[in-house]
Each structure stands twice: as C-alpha cells, then as structure tokens.
C-alpha cells in the first residue's frame, strides 16, 4: 500500500475523532433529537370510577402470556395498581382528593432509562421511538436492570412461568425461568399501527397513548391542558407515563 | 521450531490432499468409506495389540512410587491415596491420576536465584492446559455420539446440554470447542517457548498437537461457519456404523477434511505416544498398593540364583570364626 506516514496519522486521527464524536452524539442525541417518543397519560379520576376494574391488567396478561404466580415473592407484573402514597413517594397527598384512589403503574419508558445503562448484554435498549424494549433472547437474568429501575417495573421469572398461564396466546412467546420482563408498550401492536392493548381495553378511556414529541397529538393536548405528575421526577430519568390529576 | 513447522505443514498437507480428493465425486465416494473403516480397524487392532503386548510382560515386583505416609503403626494416620495400602485405595489413587491428573498437579518450577538460592514455585499451567484439553476432548467425543446412535441415549443429550450451557447463538456455542482449542494452543506454544521442552520435543510431539488442532478447527469451521447438512452426515455416519455405507451429503468438502484428519489420528494413535491413554492404567508405579511387607508379591519368572551359602562362608572363614569365638555350625 502506498500510504505515507503523515497520511496514515491523519486518517487515524480523523477516524478516532469521528468515533469519539459518534459516541458523544449518541449519549446526548437520544433525548434531544428524538422525533417519536411514545408516552402514556393515566387519568387517575376516570380510572377510579371503577375501583374493582382490572380490564387493562387482564388484557395485558392475556396478550403477553404474563403468568399469574400465586406466590407474591415470585409475582410477574406488567401493569399493576398501587396507592398514590407508594406510587408517588415523596409527594404529599394527605389532603388531596386522590389520596385514596388506586393508581395504574407500568414501565415509564424513561428518557434516560437506568435499566438500559446497566444491562450488560443490551437485552434492554431504548428504541428510536422511545420505547424501552426487551430482547428476551439476550437476557441472561443478571437482574442489574431490576436493581437499577427506581419504579419496580421489572419482574424476574423465579419459576417456570408456563404452569401459571391459564390460556396461552400463541401469537406471543412466553418466557423461561431466569428472564426479566416488563411492559413493552405493546411493540408488537405498534408495529401494526395499533394502540397498546390496555388502552384499547379500558372501559373508561382513562389511558391516553401517543407521541409526546408531536405537539398536535392527543396526549400532548391533554398534558398541556391538565395538571399532571410523573413518578420520582427528581431522579432525572424522564418518565413518559404521566398521571393526570 | 523446524519440527513444529513441519508438523503443521504435514497436517495442512493431509487436509489439502483430502480437499483435493473431495473434488472428484467418485474418489470421494470411495475414500469416504474405505478410509474411516481402515483407520478405525487400525485403531482397534492397534490398541488391542499394544495392551496385549504390555500385558504379556509381567509386573515382577511391586514398585509403587509412594507419595505419602505408609500404613504401619495404628496411631499414625496413613495417606491412603498417596500410599495406598489396599486395592480400594489404589482405585482411588488411579481415579485421581486418570481423572484429575494428580501427579501433574504437583508440578513446581525451579529457579536459581542469587545466593545461591533455589526456589520452587507453583506451576499449575501445564496441569490446567492438560485438563482443559483432555476433558474437552472427552465431552466432544461423547457429543459426537449423536451422529452414530439412533435413538440417542440420555448421556449424549446431557453432554450437549451441559456444553451448550450458556445458550449463546444458534447453532448453540459449545464451551468445549473453545476450551479444546485454547488447551491445544497452550500446549503447542509451551513446547516452542520453553527452551527445555523445545529441546526434548520430537516431530511427533508437535504432530499430535497439530493434528488434533486441525481436527478441532475443521470441526469448528463446519459447525459455526461452513454449514453442513447435519442430518445427511448422520445418515452417512449411521451407514458406516451399520455396514451399509451411504453417500455423503453434498457439498461436503469441509466434512471430508474433518473425516480424513480424524481417520489419520485414529490410525496414528496406536503407534505413537498417544498410547499413554491406555498405558496410564498399567503403570506399575501407580496401580500397585504399597503393602509389600504385608502381602507377598509373586514374580512369575523368579529363578534360582547362585548364593554364597552360609556353609561355604563358614568353611572359608573357619579359622577366623574360631579365633573370634563365634559359634560354628560344623564343629
């Protein structure tokens, strides 16, 4: 090859620089330059109209073959209900009208998800459309993500889940023992242009799904017109599940 | 160095010849059947002949190399495995030796420092390399039974499951595939790098390693890169096993190279140092108990020898015995 030393150094320098810049851009770019960031708004009061309703949970579990393990320690959950006190730790809801209302919880699909940062195999990653997705083929069950997630959105399959799935959905895989799982905003439905199953199933239309980067989307209109909170905003993870007060 | 290069060239030559032969379909058909049978027959007969020859020479004396406290006084704890007092303990010692390479584990490295001061340091790498290589080879052999047996016994499936434990990739990555290569490369470079070991190494020492490495590489190539029709190969293998040979699936250059290298190894085995596989079981310094004084060992060829008897001795030294006042047999 006919490459002078100088040329070689120049090429090396540029390629090194280029690589460094790409890295830097990747670090910042994700949060700022995203065109799509799917998000969810939960209307707490609408949801509370039917305190006993579990339609969203049922449809999610059915669609994704989420096992119903009776042993609480081995529970697997994608969407679940909890008290505001627990859901919004640090907020003072003592005298608020929503103090006693149940709150729907799920993965926040954060702007800067700590679970993604810690995953050693990139089994969890943030997609272009902002969904914090999971590749169960890659998950090695190390549970770093569970430790990193401040919202307890992730569950580990301590036991083989199959015996705890009543009627399986053949369209969706189950998981095996030793794998972590969580809400994926129904990526399989989004790719077909459909809304998440829970949104569709909610009888009160309490769940609003949409692109929060799009100023004209329903969810943005909702968020701009109503007071809302997110879970543990002080952590800087940038949750994309919003709770309308 | 020269010998190492020659050994690699020899193995490469065999592989290239096999590859060239595989070009001609008729030759391939013929060789793929004749060579494995001939090699396997050589292996079986050769090893049987070896062991028989060994067995025909008796072990006239019980000569264990004792590596621990003997069993003598009841209040001193014997080291049963290093100085086995009975057959059971011998079995234990042999198991340690054959399965875990006990003696090699003892290995040390001597260095002479200023002073002069001799220092004996730990040196377990040879043991580690040998263990890595041999155990991987065993697992790989067991795994290969999947091509020769139908239906498959549980042990073969278990070996595969264990070997593919990490469930990485498809076809699943076998740990032993990597370990066996690492082991072989370590053993090979050790022969080259250590000046003393290089000095004692013969062509055959390098050749055996190069041949095994060739087999490993061709196998890895087939599994992870070259792609072969595995059911077709199993049909071929079962054809050999049931004496109803069938044609190789096409294309099969890489498989044929693998097959020829394995056949070379099998045929070479009984005539090389590789017979240590069987020999280790027969080693009289390891497989005999240290109970010489408790149980008499019989030497089948124990022949009478000329002894300077007491009578002859007394006759010769009679005056001196008398003068010293020592008792005499014949007055």
């Amino acid at each position, binding site marked *: 090859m006919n490459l002078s030393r100088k040329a070689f150094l120049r090429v090396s320098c540029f390629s090194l620089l280029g690589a460094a810049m790409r890295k830097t851009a990747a670090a910042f770019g994700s949060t700022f330059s995203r065109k799509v960031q799917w998000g969810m708004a939960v209307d707490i009061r609408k949801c509370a109209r039917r305190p006993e309703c579990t339609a969203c949970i049922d449809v999610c579990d059915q669609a994704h073959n989420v096992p119903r393990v009776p042993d609480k320690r081995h529970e697997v959950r994608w969407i679940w209900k909890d008290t505001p006190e627990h859901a919004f730790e640090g907020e003072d809801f003592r005298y608020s009208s929503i103090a006693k209302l149940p709150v729907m919880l799920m993965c926040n699909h954060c702007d800067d998800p700590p679970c993604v940062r810690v995953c050693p195999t990139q089994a969890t990653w943030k997609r272009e459309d902002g969904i914090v997705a999971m590749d169960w083929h890659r998950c090695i069950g190390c549970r770093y993500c569970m430790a990193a997630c401040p919202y307890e959105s992730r569950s580990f399959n301590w036991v083989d889940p199959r015996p705890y799935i009543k009627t399986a959905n053949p369209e969706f895989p189950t998981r095996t023992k030793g794998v972590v799982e969580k809400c994926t905003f129904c990526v399989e439905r989004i790719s077909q242009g459909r809304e998440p199953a829970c949104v569709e199933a909610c009888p009160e239309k309490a769940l609003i799904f949409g692109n929060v980067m799009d100023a004209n989307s329903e969810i943005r209109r909702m968020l701009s017109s109503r007071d809302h909170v997110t879970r543990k905003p002080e952590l800087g993870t940038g949750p994309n599940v919003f709770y309308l007060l | 160095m020269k010998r190492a290069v020659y050994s690699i060239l020899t193995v490469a030559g065999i592989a290239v010849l096999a590859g060239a032969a595989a070009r001609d379909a008729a030759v391939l058909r013929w060789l793929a059947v004749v060579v494995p049978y001939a090699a396997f027959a050589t292996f079986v007969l050769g090893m049987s002949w070896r062991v028989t020859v060994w067995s025909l020479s008796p072990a006239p004396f019980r000569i264990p190399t004792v590596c621990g406290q003997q069993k003598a006084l009841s209040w001193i704890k014997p080291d049963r495995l290093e100085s086995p007092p009975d057959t059971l303990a011998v079995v234990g010692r042999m198991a340690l030796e054959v399965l875990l390479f006990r*003696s090699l584990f003892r290995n040390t*490295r001597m260095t002479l420092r200023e002073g002069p001061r001799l220092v004996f340091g730990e040196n377990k790498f040879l043991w580690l390399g040998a263990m890595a290589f041999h155990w991987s080879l065993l697992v790989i052999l067991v795994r290969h039974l999947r091509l020769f047996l139908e239906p498959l016994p549980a042990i073969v499936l278990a070996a595969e499951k264990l070997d593919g434990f990490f469930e990485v990739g498809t076809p699943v990555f076998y740990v032993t595939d990597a370990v066996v290569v690492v082991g072989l490369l370590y053993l090979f470079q050790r022969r080259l790098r250590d000046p003393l070991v290089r000095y004692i190494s013969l062509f055959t020492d390098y050749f055996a390693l190069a041949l095994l490495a060739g087999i490993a590489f061709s196998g890895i190539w087939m599994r992870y890169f070259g792609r072969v029709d595995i059911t077709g190969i199993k049909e071929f293998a079962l054809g050999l096993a049931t004496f109803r040979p069938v044609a190789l699936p096409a294309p099969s250059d890489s498989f044929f190279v693998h097959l020829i290298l394995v056949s070379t190894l099998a045929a070479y085995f009984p005539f090389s*140092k590789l017979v240590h596989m069987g020999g280790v079981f027969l080693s009289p310094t390891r497989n005999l108990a*240290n109970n*010489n004084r408790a149980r008499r060992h019989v030497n089948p060829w124990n022949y009478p020898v000329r002894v300077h008897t007491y009578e002859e001795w007394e006759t010769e030294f009679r005056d*001196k015995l008398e003068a010293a006042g020592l008792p005499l047999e014949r007055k």
Partner: protein
Amino acid sequence: MPSPRPEELVQIQYRPPAKEWLDTPVEFRKGTYCYSALPKNLQYLGFPNPRDWQPTDADWKLPKDWKRIILEGMRDRLNRFRSFRLFMDICVRCGACADKCHYFIGSGDPKNMPVLRAELIRSVYRRYFTLTGRLFGRLAGARDLTEDVLKEWFYYFYQCTECRRCSVFCPYGIDTAEITMMVRELLNLVGCNINWVMEPVANCDRIGNHLGIQPHGFKDSIDFAASELEELTGVHVEPSINRKGAEILFIVPSADYFGTPHYYTFLGYLALFHQIGLDYTFSAYASEGGNFGLFTSHEMMKRLNAKVYAEARRLGVKWILGGECGHMWRVMHQYMATMNGPAEFLEPPVSPITGTRFEHARSTKMVHICEFTADLIHHGKIRLDPTRNDRWNVTYHDSCNIARVVGLLEEPRYILRHVCNQFHEMPENTIREQTFCCGSGSGLGTDENFEMRMRGGFPRANAVRYVREKYGVNLLTCICAIDKATLPPLLEYWTPGVEVAGVHELVGNALILDGEKERETDLRGEPIARKGVLVHA
C-alpha cells in the same frame, strides 16, 4: 579447597545447547564420572568381560558382538518387566520431570533431565523395537545403537541415583530409577560397570558386607562399640553375634559399625536394646543390610539379599529388625519377600516390649527400627531426656528410598520430637515425597565423582542452608547410611557448620539408662550442653 569451588560450580547454565541432543556425544570430564570396575571383582562374581579399561579410553574393549548382546538383553528385559516396556512407550515428553532431578538442577546438563535420560535408551528402543522407529528413523526420534550411544548410557545412567523424585511428578508415574536399573543391567552384560558398585558387591557376596570386614573384624567392631558405650554411659552391654535362638535378627548397613557418623547411631541401637532388654543377635554372615546388587542387576540384588532370610532361618529367630538405611529398605520393602520369600519359617513381628503386632510387616517379617522405636515411645516404654540434645538445632532429611519407596515419613519425626527440643522442617518442596537426594546414592558416592556429587547434592544442601540461616539449624538427621557418609562432605562444601547424625544417635543421647552414670558427654564424646546450662568449651 576442592576444585571447582562452590562459587564456580553454581554458575549453572540452564539453556540447552543449540545442537540437538542426538548429535552431542558424551565427553568424560574428570570429577563427573566413576572409575571402571576392577577385573578381579567381576571375575569373582562371574560377570562378563572383566578387563582393564577406563571410561576415558577411546577403546572400551567391548565384546565383538556387544550390540547383539545389548539388543537381546533389551528384548529379554522388555519381556520380563512391564515397567520397562511401558515406560519406553508412553512418555509424552511433557517435561514435568525436567527440573525435578537434582542432577539437572545442579548441572544444567539437559541430558540430566529425566525425560532426556530416558530418551537416551528410548531412541534405541524405537529404532529396534517399534514400527514407526524402523520406518521413520530420526523423524520418529529413533537412532542406531553405536559405541557413542553406549558411552552416553554409561555416563548418564551412572549419573542417576535412582531416587525416584521424577516419578512423583510424572503424570504416568514413569520411574527413571526403573529405566536406570535396566540400562545398568544392560551395561553389565558387556562389562561396563563401576568399581564403587562392583567392589562392595563382590565383598558382600564373599565376606558378608560391603566393606569386606571379615568375621573377626566384625566382632571386634561390635565389642569395641560395647566397651565405648560403657565408657560413655557406665552401662555394660553384651551384644551377641550368630546366636541361635534369639528372638530377633538385627540387620544394619555395615557402615553403621565402621563409619562416622554412622557409628554413633550404632551406639544408640546398642543402648536402646540393652535398656529394653531385647533378645536379639547380629549375624556375621549377613552382616550387611545394604545391597549394592540393587545398583547392579535384579539377579545380583537377589543373590546378596538371599543371605538375610537364610540366616534368619538358620538362627531360628522369630522376625527381623532393620537399622537405618535407605536403599537397604528399598530392597527389604519392595523386593525381599518377592525374591527370596515367602518367609514362612518366621513369625509375624510382635514387639516383645509393647505387644504391638506389626501387621504391615506380617509377610516380609521385617520391621524398621524407626517403627519399632516410635512404638516404644508411644507406649511410654522408655524414658527420654531431650535436653541432652540441646546443643543440636535439628532438621530431618527424608532419604529417597525411605520416603518414596516405604512411605516412612512420620515415624522418624515422631521420634525426633521426643528426643530433641529444637526441630525445624526444611521447605516443603524439599522434604517428604518431594525430598532431594544426597546426590551420591546408587553407588555414586565415590571421590573421583566429587564434582557431580556436589552438583547433585546442591538442591539438598540449599534447603539445609535455608534452615541453617533461618532457624540456626546445625544438625541434619537422616536414616540412611549413604546419606550419613556423603552428606557431611556435601554440607561442608555448600553450607559449612551443619553436621549429620542418625535419628538413633539422638535417641541414644536422650535415652535414660538404668544404672547409668551421670552423662556428661553425648555419644560423640562431646560435652552435653543443656540450654541455660554453662557450656563447656
């Protein structure tokens, strides 16, 4: 000052030469080989090809058909010894043995690596006895048997002390001692042997011991020892010789009643047996425990060893007790019963003092003195005053054969812990089964071989030096007659200020005898210096 000096000797080059080992014929250098056997010794024993010659001669005056003799001898031995055939076949040249041999450590000569020492004959085996060797020759590591090869054998197989250390580390247990024994047998077939082995063998066969001490001289030595013991302790002992009806026949290496420091150990035996009232006798006919036949051939070993059982039978004893000796115990432990047994005319050994049945010796009927004494101490049958050995700071050298053939490791240590107050082990890679040879075993302890002995003993001496510097050790104890003879000059050479003694010398010092006088000196006649007590000059 001996030449070469230690500083020169320790300049050891461990890098092998550029030339292949097959192309480097042996060079006999003064101080590294032993002189040939005198014809009279071979003639007496009926060994082939007695003649005047030396290894440095160009012409070794070999028989015309020496090659045929060697090859037929090889074939015969391959058929008779599985060890030999197997060890020719299965070596993989892994090199684990390389730096385990004391001669290699001390000389750096690559042909002193056990693997290469064995290759010297293995290459010939391949050439004449294997298919690959015949077909591929040098490529398969085979070579023709030539006079140069024979000379190489002579040089290097008389540079192996049959200590078996390599065998401990070999993954297949290949024992160079076994190979050395075969090659020495082969060399004997064409009359290539050394005088320092053959003269003791001839003496032992004819007179009864290596040193050639005739019966009256033997009796004088023992009487002298008895009177000296009386002088030292005030106790009168009366050892018996060739006494029929004694319970026990006591066999020691002949150096014990003649050599120094063996002699003090001998005094220790006498004192001990007297104190416990043992009914034992010596034999003038079998007045040698050692057996240089082991270093000659299996047949010669058997010839010499036969006297022990013959004498035990003639004297009508119940069992045999053996003194401190290394290679003697190799023969007694591994060969005696097989070669000259079964000893049905004897009884399984029982200690008359403690009643202990020595079950481990029930077939051979021979007990080691350390087993016997340890048993006495364990049962509290003797009273000991370890302070009498306070001037000694003691370490213990495992003799190769005692450690790697018998496995007698704890018994002598048990005794030492009861007879002295200061005891320190040498580093762990140099003791027990990993013990280093004195460098002069298997008949190589002769003065013309001085340089090689110092080289071979270097690892042992180095370990002694370590404990001398670290703990102030000044006495090396051992239970081998060759050690006692060759370790003093070795330590003098490498690490002056450490003396050598047998274990039973210390037993004799510490033993409280009934009716003894105030013991002012130890068995060496030197003042007893108790710790904290004024030391006499």
